[in-house]
């Protein structure tokens, strides 16, 4: 089971993730990411990985089995 996770301390609200991955990430009114709840659909996994890698502060992760990677 893979889901999106954000390290709230490392995240500084660049907002790049929401721009690149609107299917799974929206921004709150202060520019911080709101992640889609639950498991990522398999067809979105590749994109999600790329978006996580593009996070300027490396705050966005993909998380397996309920633990942060």
């Amino acid at each position, binding site marked *: 089971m893979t889901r999106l996770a954000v390290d*709230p*301390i490392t995240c500084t609200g660049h907002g790049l993730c929401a721009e690149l991955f609107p299917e799974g990430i929206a921004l709150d009114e*202060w520019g911080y990411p709101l992640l889609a709840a639950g498991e990522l659909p398999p067809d979105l996994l590749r994109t999600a990985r790329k978006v996580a890698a593009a996070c300027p502060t490396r705050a966005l992760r993909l998380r397996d089995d309920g633990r942060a990677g």
Partner: protein
Amino acid sequence: MTAVTAPELTRGLLDGPGPSFAQHCAAHGPLPVVDLHTLVEEAGLAGRGGAGFPTAAKLRSVAAAAAATRKAPVVVANGSEGEPAAAKDATLLALVPHLVLDGLALVAAALGASAAYLAADEALLPGLATHLADRRDPVGVRLHPVAQVFLSGEESALCAALDGRPPLPRTKFPPVRERGVAGRPTLVLNVETLARLALVARGNDLAAAALLVTRRMEIAGTPWVDVVDVPLGSRIGDVLRLDDAQAVLIGGYAGTWVEASRAAGLRLDRSSLAPAGASLGAGVLAALPADRCGLRETAGVVGYLAAQSAGQCGPCLNGLPRIAAALDVLARPAPAPSGLLRDVERWSGLLPGRGACSHPDATVRLVASALRVFSEELARHGADRCSAHTGRPFLPVPGSG
């Protein structure tokens, strides 16, 4: 002042002839050698720091992490008490310091710890150093002063402080139970939890079935604050005098408001409090007198809590000050801008689960309970009225005089 007594109250944990080691030994006898893991499991002891986590599970996970990493763990007695309304940890450390130190020695021995710390307010340390000098603990205890800020007792913030870093919470992966002080598996237990352990180890099974409560109330207009040892399951109405109270703050500033009439019948244990959205928290019970404005009191507390955000996580950093400012407006006896209440509700929805620690979650829970319990007051404010007869604050807020 007349004493407030209720039949169910005892002073068990705080009973004792005095704080010295000689007095402690005379009252309690020597510390027995016990199988702590089994004992704690059977006693069903839960942590008294706020989260109420089962102590046996904590012990087990630190032991497992120590075995897996082959690192000797660290044990920490947490007497930080950053909660301004609470006084139980300081009281305990002043009255029965050796019960806390016994508990720390027990967990240090059970885990084969390489280091032990006791963190407390700076003012308590000289006295504690004297008490420590009378003991011969196999694992020496290092005293550590904690900053008097709300989050100083949050376990990851405390571990950071013990490592010489700023006392800020960090994300829960990995938890301090796996990697805490000096990167070692770390067991952080509240000082009350440790004192109870010391009594349970001596065969006092009732010790696990009670909790320290800091009571705040007013009796005939006079503020009353004390700390009592109360059996779990006691009715709040038997613990607090509620004749002249409108609501009870249960748990402290990370807690919940409940109407006095409803609170009176609630029992002090997890399962009874949960349906009322409340929990034991840091063991604070504050009975808000009828002549105060619950919204004003909450606004004061929330302003303090917003300022006490570690400022690390965007939603907390942005959301709490906005909620606090809005609450400040709602606390005035004047019509509030339309939509302000909806703003508070929306911001409150944006915070839970989005911080490294539970500070934002707890604060919006407090706010929601205030808006529910003091809804009539809110309507009164809309009509330029307020039920407060005094501007004297009831709940203590550091820095506000």
